[in-house]
């Protein structure tokens, strides 16, 4: 607890931290998981505004990098590009890698890994004794600005996030030690979209219960009326992005990080 508090402080102040991996890049990054205190998340579409309680958990402070993922596939050959079962990833899995174990140049080492399917991300986390974060966990952590743990109603923060989404580039920029959010977590918005364990809990149009449709009324922006926070445009973007995903989907702007329950 003390350690993680010190870590958060150190990261917040941009103090140099001991490197945990090989020094491919000039930055020193402490990748120890961050403990996130219990809180809650209000889903964008919730029954009567029901908040979801989020128990305390741990999350990776950085997205998983290409170098991290290369170490994983070295140990787990079935997740290499040449051996991946087509059930678990589309044809562009690890697109851009030079070979099964070679992600590119040293400059690419600290880029968040992208072109990974949900199945591959899930397997990576499981191999590390971790799991993917839930949507509620991810959104709860990502609602923090540098200053506040919940900036989801802060118009300035929302505008910043939106601008950040527009400024993303591919290939995704390497991780760096730039200021984390209030929880001590980096790059939730400024690198890529990230997988969550329950991405397929966003329902598309064939939502069934009450499929009779006799009361269906179509009018402009109807979709936003039921939203709990219509002003949070970035949340709509993430929601819409997840709605388009399949377990085998890979994309050059979609990566992940892992989480862990606290026993």
């Amino acid at each position, binding site marked *: 607890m003390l350690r993680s508090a010190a870590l958060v402080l150190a990261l917040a102040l941009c103090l140099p931290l001991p490197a945990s991996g090989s020094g491919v890049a000039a930055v020193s990054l402490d990748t120890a998981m961050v403990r996130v205190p219990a809180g809650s998340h209000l889903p964008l579409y919730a029954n009567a505004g029901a908040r979801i309680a989020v128990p305390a958990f741990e999350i990776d402070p950085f997205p998983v990098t290409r170098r991290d993922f290369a170490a994983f596939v070295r140990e787990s050959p079935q997740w290499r590009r040449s051996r991946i079962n087509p059930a678990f990833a589309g044809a562009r899995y690890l697109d851009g890698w030079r070979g099964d174990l070679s992600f590119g140049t040293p400059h690419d080492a600290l880029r968040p890994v992208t072109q990974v399917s949900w199945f591959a991300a899930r397997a990576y986390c499981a191999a590390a004794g971790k799991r993917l974060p839930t949507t509620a966990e991810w959104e709860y952590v990502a609602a923090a600005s540098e200053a506040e743990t919940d900036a989801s109603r802060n118009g300035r923060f929302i505008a910043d996030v939106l601008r950040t989404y527009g400024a993303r580039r591919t290939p995704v920029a390497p991780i760096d030690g730039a200021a984390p959010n209030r929880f001590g977590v980096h790059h939730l918005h400024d690198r890529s979209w990230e997988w969550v364990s329950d991405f397929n809990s966003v329902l598309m*149009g064939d939502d069934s*219960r009450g499929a009779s449709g006799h009361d269906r009324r179509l009018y402009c922006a109807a979709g936003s009326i039921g939203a709990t926070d219509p002003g949070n445009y970035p949340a709509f973007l993430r929601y819409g992005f997840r709605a388009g995903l*399949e377990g085998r989907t890979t994309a050059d702007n979609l990566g992940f990080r892992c989480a862990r329950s606290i026993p």
Partner: protein
Amino acid sequence: MSILTRLVPIFAALLGGLAILAGCGEAPAMPAEGAVEAEKVGDRFSVYALDTESWWDQTGEMRALGSLEGRVQVLAMVYTHCAHTCPRIVADMLQLEAMTEELGKEVGFVLVSIDPDRDQPGRLASFADGIGLDPARWTLLQGTDDGTRALAALLGVRYRQEADREIAHTNELTVLSPAGEIVHQRKGLDEPLEHTLDALVAAADTPPGSDPARR
């Protein structure tokens, strides 16, 4: 489930498109819904590749998904406390069972619970008995939370626990070849059952000449 929730997808899909445009210069692998479907049906992979998860059937026996291999299966993800569309899906499957039996096709039927907390093997057994499902053809499975999510991800099924203990879910009816390939998928409840029957008949491994009229 309000009408608003059902309208969300239109809006969400629109936003998803915007998100992609905003995210990068080059369009990522993010096909439209129809294209995803086309990719999934006919793409050569077996659902039985998902072999790291454990399942329990209505007899309480632990089994791997691959134990379904070897015959055509019609699979749906439902839950037994479901009062709305699940009974309709099961009714459709019973109708398919009668149709395929009449045609002399050997087909299995699988219900996988999306409510593994409540759908214990005993509950699945009494559900099966209540409707009179033939245990020689019907397999009802309870998995882990994580394993159920994974199978849903493989099949393109989406579900979400609601506050009222109901589970909102999509209604895919999936036809698997004996090897576990997705050879047909009915999305929603509106597509005529005959389409699924045609796919079943095409996939069923019937001895040559046994049903020449249909061949």
